[in-house]
Structures are given as C-alpha cells and as structure tokens.
C-alpha cells in the first residue's frame, strides 16, 4: 500500500468527524487525537519491528516484550486502585502467562523461535491478558463490595478469608472469561478475525491463515483462564488483614 493510498483511508476518519459535528456529540477532538496517536504509534512500532527483525537479537526481543508488559501493567493498574501491590501482582501475572505460553509454543516447536513470531504472539497474549485483567478487576471489586455482608457472615461463623471470598472470586473469574469463550463460538460465522483477514489480504493461503488463527484462538483461551485465575488468587489475600478481617476496597 502506497502512502497516497494510506492517506485516502483517512476518508474513514472524516465520516465519524462529520457525524460528531452534525449531531453535537463533541467527539471531534478525541477522534483527531486517536487518529494522530494511532498513526504515530503504529508507524513507530513498524520501524522498531523492522529494526528488531533485522537485528535478530534476543536482547531486543526481550526489551520489546518487557515494554509490552510494562505498558499493559501501567494501563491495568488504574483499575486496581486500593489493592496493595497491584503493580507487581499484574506484572507477575503477565510475565507468568508470557513465559508459559512462549515455552509451550517454542518448546513444542509449534512456531519457530524468531522475533517475527515471538513479538507478534506476545503482543496478542499480553494485550488480551491486559483486557482480561481489567474486566476481572472491575467485576471483582463490584462483587466484593456488593457481597460484603456475605463475606462478613462467613468470617463471623469461623470461615477463612478464602472461604469468605470464594463465591465472589469464582463469579468474577467466570464473568471475565465469558466474552472470550462466547466470541470463539461465533468466530467465522459472525466475524472473520483481524489477523486471519490480514493474512488473506496479504496473499496467504486461507487454510494456512485459518491454522494460525486457530493457534491464536486457543492461545487466547488459555490466556483468559490463566489471567483471571492467577490475578484472582494473587489479589484476594490483600482484601483481608492478618486478623482475617475485611479491608474496604477503596
């Protein structure tokens, strides 16, 4: 795609701008900022990826993945305000999932250990894990606050913090995993995944594109389960003190 053709795609930005202006939505500034940021960020990452792929250095691969994890942690931690040590808990979750998934992918020789695969798949894993972490923290804080009386009841009868929070934890883990499972049920029927479509447009064999897409889908399913379970079990103890009393989620 030439830069001129790319410039023509801005027509798709003009449409929401015009709609926002005519309907008085007040979203013009945000739309322009989002457009400019996406152009700068994606072009920058494109040049950086070019450099890293050419260098074939594991140090650069490591730095790229570390940067992804740092950005995901920074974004998700805003939803965990009030949880002691939320930053390291999120970092530990993302690092564990990244290590586990890459170990399986490379260890079983599912994909080659090259920058092209490691960085692309890490981006999907960490990005998806970040969204799941935000969904989980949102739901968990709501569940904990709305069921404080049940937590108090269980503690008052001699239950442990784990027993007091069990139901809220399970509900939140399930709720955060449901969107991933549901979207997989309709994939190919309602929507064609972006990665697969991109490969097909770029000229790849559709069957090969589907194979890679299946790999990504299974990877994301595993990421969804691991993120909410790991984060849940790291977070819940911080909602109680050493005397097994509930601490408000501020």
């Amino acid at each position, binding site marked *: 795609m030439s830069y001129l053709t790319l410039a023509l795609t801005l027509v798709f930005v003009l449409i929401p701008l015009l709609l926002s202006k005519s309907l008085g939505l007040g979203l013009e500034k945000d739309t322009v900022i989002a457009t400019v940021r996406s152009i700068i960020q994606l072009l920058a990452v494109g040049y950086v990826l070019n450099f890293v792929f050419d260098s074939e250095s594991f140090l650069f691969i490591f730095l790229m993945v570390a940067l992804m994890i740092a950005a995901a942690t920074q974004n998700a931690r805003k939803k965990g305000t009030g949880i002691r040590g939320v930053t390291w808990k999120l970092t530990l979750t993302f690092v564990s999932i990244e290590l586990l998934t890459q170990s399986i992918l490379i260890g079983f020789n599912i994909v080659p250990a090259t920058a092209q695969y490691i960085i692309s798949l890490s981006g999907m894993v960490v990005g998806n894990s970040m969204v799941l972490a935000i969904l989980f923290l949102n739901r968990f804080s709501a569940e904990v606050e709305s069921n404080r009386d049940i937590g108090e*009841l269980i503690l008052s009868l001699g239950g442990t913090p784990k027993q007091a929070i069990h139901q809220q934890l399970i509900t939140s883990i399930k709720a955060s995993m449901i969107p991933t499972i549901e979207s997989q049920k309709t994939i190919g029927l309602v929507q064609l995944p972006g990665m697969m479509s991109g490969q097909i447009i770029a000229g790849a064999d559709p069957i090969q594109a589907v194979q890679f897409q299946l790999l990504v889908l299974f990877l994301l399913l595993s990421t969804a389960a691991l993120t909410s379970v790991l984060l849940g079990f790291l977070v819940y103890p911080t909602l109680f003190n050493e005397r097994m009393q509930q601490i408000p989620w501020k």
Partner: protein
Amino acid sequence: MSSHQSPALQFSNVHYTIDDIAILHNVSGCFPKGKITALVGPSGAGKTTLLKLCNGLLSPTSGSICVNSQPIDQFEPPQLRRHIGMVLQNSPMLKGSVYDNLALPFRLKGEQLTKEEAVNLLEQTGLQRSFLEADALNLSGGQRQKVSIARTLGNQSSVLLLDEITSSLDRTSVQEIETLILRLNKDNGTSVIWITHNLEQAMRVSDYLWVMMNGQVVETGDPSLLDSPANEQVAKFVKGEQS
C-alpha cells in the same frame, strides 16, 4: 457486678477509630460469664461496633479485650469466632435453601450437617421442618432472623452476640426467641450479649445491662437501673424510648 461473676469478656480502655472518627471512646467494663447482658443505647452509639470487636470482626485501635482473661489477639480468628458466635443485624442469607444456610458453619469446618440435625436447629427457633427446602432469599424478615439464629447455634458457641435479633418479629416469635435464648443460657451456661432497642425486653431477659451513648459506656449494672437512671442522658433516652 459482684465479685463472684468472672467475666466472659473484659474491655479495658478500648478505642475504635475509623478514618479519624472515633466510634468507641475509652470503653471499659465486663460482660459476666454465664449471664445475659443487654446492650442498649440510641442508634449510632457504637453498639454493633462493640459486638464486632467481641467477635474479632474488628480490632480495637487501642486498649485491650480479654476473653476468659486471655487477650483476644492470642486466639486464632476462626477459633475465636466459633467460641463467640454472632447473629448479624441484617441476617444475610446465602443463595440456596434454608438447609444450605444451616449447613454453612459445618461446611466451613469441613463437616456435614444431617437433615435431622438441621431440623433440630430449625425447631429450636420455632420454624417447622417444611422450611428446610425453602429458598432462603425468599424468606420474610422474621423468618430470616430465625434462620440466622439457628445457623449461628450450629457452632455451639459459649458466648452469643445478638444484634437486634427480634426487631422484625411478631410478639409470638419474640417470645419464642426469648425463651430459646433464656434456655440456652440456663441449660448450657451460654453467655449472651444482646443488643436491643426494646427496653422492656432488656429488663425482661437480662441479668446485667450496659447503656452506651456516643461511643461511650455511660451506665452499667442491674437492668433495674433503667427504672431510675442516675445519668441525665440515660434518663432522657429511657423517656424517649418508652414514650
């Protein structure tokens, strides 16, 4: 309190503060063992907070609480909370049947509650066997309070903390619950601390009385002190509650 009554719980200079607001201020006194102590006072006096301190759901900001002459923080929280059972004011119910709720204290210990044991717990509070399979979330306020009491009885606690447990009950049910608590006290020697807004009930059921106002204990002694309170604030409160 006469010298032969050893305390089930002893408070010494207890303060409880949350977000720099003093909820309890310099609370000292005893709850006699094997007796029923009524805890009365206007709303916001700190009565429920005091009960939660007894059960270890809260810890004092300063001061000390002793259970059978042992500092409360020397007990493991689950052990303490089974020893000092509490019936919560809002009677929260788990999703599920009445049986599921009665089985909760047993499940938390890794034990099972038989149907017969559950019926026995239920009947102690005046509820019939047919309630066992009822949906706990669909019970009336009074039924919830009864199930909540029956559930706490499952732990066979030595001390029972009751937070306005008869506030939603009709007169017959109030009598049934009062009879039950008096029987538990007499037969098992269970010490009871009973928050009530009903001063007549306080005088009827209790052996000892605490009056709290603005986070402080203003009077303790024989329940008959409500007939002619020495403290002016208490006199006004009694007059207000009885009018």
